[in-house]
């Protein structure tokens, strides 16, 4: 019963919004009614344009996520497994990590110019950190018994790394990747706002400047849908992986403690 009420609550909120707009309690010049926002979709060319811009934003997001995720994953594995490397890189990481990722945009503009590369590079920079930290911690938190068993079994260090450390660090990596994808969407949109000529961020901003409020709200809605689609994709992927390899992405007992 309560669950049903909870599910109906968003609809009720939309309804209240609509009624307030119709009744004149909200100034529709700034906050159009939901029906007006959706009606804007019917205008010729809007739906197709919105779809194309969403595609561009998603392309940048996924490109940046792939680059940054791969970099963070590799570096995290290396730093987790090789202690001296970690000790050498730690100060550099501590210097680079607190830089707010959007502050890198002006530098990326100088190096890469305006375009897809810019958004992808900044998104990759932003989302490599959570993956790096999660993977490094996960590799370090691998149960010592597992390492010792591998060594006693006569596995060479390379094989032990491949067959024991990497699979055991996957659950930790998954949480890092999930955070990173959310960050990638946000950063891609930010890049489009600050230094872009297309994409959802630019669309929303120009529509707001041009006082096309329904279009701006529509773009915001599309950003929400893009973010939701990414989150849904990750959870579907996890479910699929669990179906194919049960236990692969589940935390082993004794794991998950911070080293």
């Amino acid at each position, binding site marked *: 019963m*309560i*669950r049903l*009420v*909870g*599910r109906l*609550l*968003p609809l009720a*909120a939309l309804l209240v919004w609509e009624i307030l707009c119709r009744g004149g309690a909200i100034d529709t010049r*700034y*906050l159009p009614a939901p029906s007006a926002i959706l009606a804007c979709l019917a205008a010729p060319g809007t739906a197709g344009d919105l779809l194309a811009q969403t595609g561009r934003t998603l392309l940048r997001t996924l490109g940046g996520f792939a680059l940054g995720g791969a970099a963070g994953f590799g570096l995290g594995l290396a730093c987790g497994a090789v202690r*001296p490397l970690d*000790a*050498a*890189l*730690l*100060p*550099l990481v*501590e*210097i*680079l990590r*607190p*830089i*707010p*990722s*959007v*502050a*890198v945009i*002006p*530098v990326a*503009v*100088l190096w890469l110019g305006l375009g897809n590369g810019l958004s992808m590079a900044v998104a990759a920079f*932003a989302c490599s950190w959570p993956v790096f930290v999660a993977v490094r911690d996960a590799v*370090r*938190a691998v149960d010592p018994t597992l390492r010792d068993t591998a060594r006693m079994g006569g596995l060479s260090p390379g094989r032990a790394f491949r067959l024991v450390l990497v699979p055991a660090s996957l659950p930790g990596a998954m949480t890092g990747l999930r955070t990173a994808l*959310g960050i990638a*969407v*946000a950063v891609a*949109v*930010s890049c489009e*706002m*600050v230094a872009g000529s297309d994409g*959802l*961020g630019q669309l*929303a*901003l120009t*529509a*707001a400047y041009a006082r096309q*409020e329904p279009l*701006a*709200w529509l*773009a*915001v809605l599309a*950003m*929400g849908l893009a*973010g*939701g689609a990414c*989150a849904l994709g990750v959870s579907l992927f996890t479910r699929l992986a669990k179906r194919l390899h049960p236990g692969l992405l589940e935390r082993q007992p004794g794991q998950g*403690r*911070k*080293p």
Partner: protein
Amino acid sequence: MRRLRPLLGLLTAFLLWEVAALTAGTRALPTPVAVAWALVGLIQSATLPRALGLTLGHTSLGVGAALGCGIPLGLWMGRSQVVRTLLTPIMELVRPLPPPALIPPAMLLLGFGPGLYMAVIGFGACFPLLLAAMDAGRAVPEILCDTARCQGASRLRIATRVVFPACLPGLAMGLRTTLPIALIVAVLAEMVGGDGTGRLLLRLQRTWRIPEMYACIVGLGLTGWGLSAGLSFLERRFLFWAPSRQHPTPRP
């Protein structure tokens, strides 16, 4: 030698940067020395401190709003099953919205000013806090509350003297994830409209004062580092009952 290893890595990075800057010879990559001098110049002319002060002000405005909304709501959702099932669907609907998406509507509704920063940064900073508060609220050991109830404590007293302190370590962790997000969103909002470090950064880039631009980024990085270091200092100093302090985890 072991002690020197971190310094060695840093030194190598700086040398690589210096060599790369000298060989590349583009104005897009100044040498570290030039950046350091630019940083000194920016600090002496009070440009950077003033901009960073504005950014910190905006960030604290947003984080304050997020603390005010997220923590009570999160604790309430954590402590009450009914509220949790009631509000979870709407939260899950709003949560995937990337925080920058709020900038254009906030611009329309609130104009450029403190309202915009408060809304946009507050929105971005709210969800990590809310989720952390919810998890912390759910994880409060029931036995603590039952004990307090047996001693005749009122509901309000249990909430302020038992539940809130028990949740504080979890809330501190939520704040630690929130602060960098808040700083990022603050810089972005400043880039799009207004003042502060984000604006300064774009202006320096557009007027082709590249060493100053890099110095500005260094300043922002130092600010972010200072925020997280200050928070973990406060945590170590005051949260002596945090679970991570009670069972020191063995180093593998």
